[in-house]
């Protein structure tokens, strides 16, 4: 890494030992390690398919479930495999409004993934910045931030989210906000822990000797080395966010009825479970399940590989 114009000195006395950038071979070694678990590979592939399906939902879905004009109440609650009036086969049945389950699920998947990934990413950014800052600065600032983190972490996610949504009401952005509030603390704690360790290392000391601006030290030097646990946590949190959103929507406090996520679809079909019309709840549930499990399989294996004890 070049120091260049940022340095106050004309030339460094000793070139600082900087963290190795990910070289070609390191990436390949990482991929080999990852691919060694068939389970994780399967998870990755499955999730890839799901993500693609969600992104291209408007093009793949046979029917637009939000377009009321397309729905026919006569077709409601048909079991899987039944044909509609127009001769179109509902592979997974229809729900109580006559929506084709496949289409509803694809669109629902879209919402679920959007909310889940979006909130996890935003929480990650916010939590990481705060954690890096706390770990680097130290002192009472760090102490204060970590106490707040502890407070947030000691309360069960579901309760906090419920309260926030009761406050804000339904809505996609509100759910995203609620999940961010619940999740940011995990990132902060993990990042701050790693930052504490890395902070002691020589390369940071060297960077400080060169009077590099703190922001540069933080982001170019410290953060890349805090990445491994962050990646693991982010992956698991995406799954958690998706699950949380589904639960909240199921309880009626999540996304609005007009844009149902998988959780809401399940809630809609809940009442029909006892009368034997299981497919309205069951299939969205399976879709949700596969999504979450595939992400967790990837995240679990990542955690095994990126475990610092295995690395050093």
């Amino acid at each position: 890494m070049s120091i260049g114009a940022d340095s106050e000195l004309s030339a460094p006395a000793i070139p600082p030992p900087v963290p190795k950038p990910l070289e070609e071979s390191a990436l390949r070694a990482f991929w080999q390690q990852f691919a060694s678990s068939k389970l994780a590979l399967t998870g990755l592939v499955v999730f890839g398919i799901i993500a693609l399906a969600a992104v291209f939902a408007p093009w793949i879905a046979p029917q637009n479930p939000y377009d009321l004009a397309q729905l026919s109440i006569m077709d409601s609650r048909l079991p899987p495999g039944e044909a509609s009036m127009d001769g179109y086969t509902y592979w997974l049945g229809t729900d109580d409004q006559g929506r084709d389950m496949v289409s509803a699920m694809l669109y629902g998947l879209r919402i679920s993934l959007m909310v889940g990934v979006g909130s996890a990413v935003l929480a990650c950014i916010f939590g990481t910045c705060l954690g890096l800052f706390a770990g680097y600065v130290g002192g009472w600032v760090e102490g204060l931030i970590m106490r707040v983190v502890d407070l947030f972490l000691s309360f069960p996610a579901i309760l906090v989210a419920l309260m926030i949504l009761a406050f804000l009401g339904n809505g996609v952005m509100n759910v995203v906000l609620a999940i961010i509030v619940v999740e940011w603390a995990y990132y902060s704690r993990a990042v701050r822990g790693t930052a504490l360790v890395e902070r002691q290392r020589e390369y940071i000391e060297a960077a400080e000797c060169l009077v590099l601006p703190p922001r540069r030290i933080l982001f170019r030097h410290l953060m890349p080395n805090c990445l491994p646990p962050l990646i693991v946590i982010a992956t698991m949190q995406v799954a958690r966010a998706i699950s949380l959103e589904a639960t909240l929507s199921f309880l009626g406090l999540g996304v609005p009825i007009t844009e149902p996520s998988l959780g809401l679809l399940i809630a809609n079909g809940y009442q029909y479970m006892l009368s034997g019309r299981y497919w309205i709840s069951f299939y969205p549930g399976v879709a949700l399940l596969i999504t979450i499990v595939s992400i967790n399989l990837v995240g679990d294996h990542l955690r095994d590989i990126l475990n610092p004890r295995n690395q050093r």
Partner: protein
Amino acid sequence: MTTWLLRRILQALLIVGAMSVTVFVAVNVIGDPVEVLISPEATQEERARIIANLGLDQPLWKQYLNFVSDALQGSLGNSFVYNEPALELVLSRLPATLELAVFALLIAILVGIPLGLYAGLKPESKASRTIMAGSILGFSLPTFWVGLVMIMVFAVQLGWLPSSGRGETVEVLGVRWSFLTADGLQHMLLPAVNLALFKLSMVLRLTRAGTRETLSMDYVKFARAKGLTPARVIGVHVLKNIMIPIVTVLGLELGSLIAFAVVTETIFAWPGMGKLIVDSIYVLDRPVIVAYLMMIVLLFVTLNLIVDILYSVLDPRVRLESRS
């Protein structure tokens, strides 16, 4: 030891105090219960009367002070919906939630620890791999969906177990418990397993990680070098060491189980605190929400304290250092 204990109790009280403020402020800016409770046809007078009755016309800080003074006398206001004292309402539902949570915790421990121990001792065996894969499933599956499937399979299709509600209760010490009746246990089985699933997976993984770590320790090798039987090495040396982190985690998990019961209780129509809070949030029954949250805070803080004490009892290094 006593100074440490006193300090912890003081901390706990402070937290409870801080939380009461937070809870009160937060709850009182949630929506407008007036709209919810008072029918649109009510006259101005009736509205004014109800508002004054519920004390909603006073400034926030005054409401808070009233709240605190009432609280210290044991009253947290009356439920807007049921018109009963909120605290008593919450407390009346506590036994149901408590027995569910404890039962779930027991399941998690009694199944999770042995399985985790086995997976840690023989990590490469087929059974272990299956167990670990299963544990991923266990913490991935959303609780509410599992509950639905369980109802579908066990109650609807097979008809083995009831699908909702709490069973017959028996009164012990002035409180109604359902686990003492066969019917009660039948009703409790599905929701308890549902609630336990997530925790079970976590306990299992924790136990396995702890076992793997402990097995690589020198003192285990030394125990073997002494010629001790594997049963003793695992049963005494390994187990005692892994119990410490597990017990501490479990203590905290009981609290989160009680909170998580929200979902399970809703699905299985279990008349506990969880269902109460969800219903109360729907109708913005503020006193009940406040009472519930305060109960939870109190519960958490107490559990934390107990866990700290337990930790110092179990780990002699901590106990003896704090004394000197």
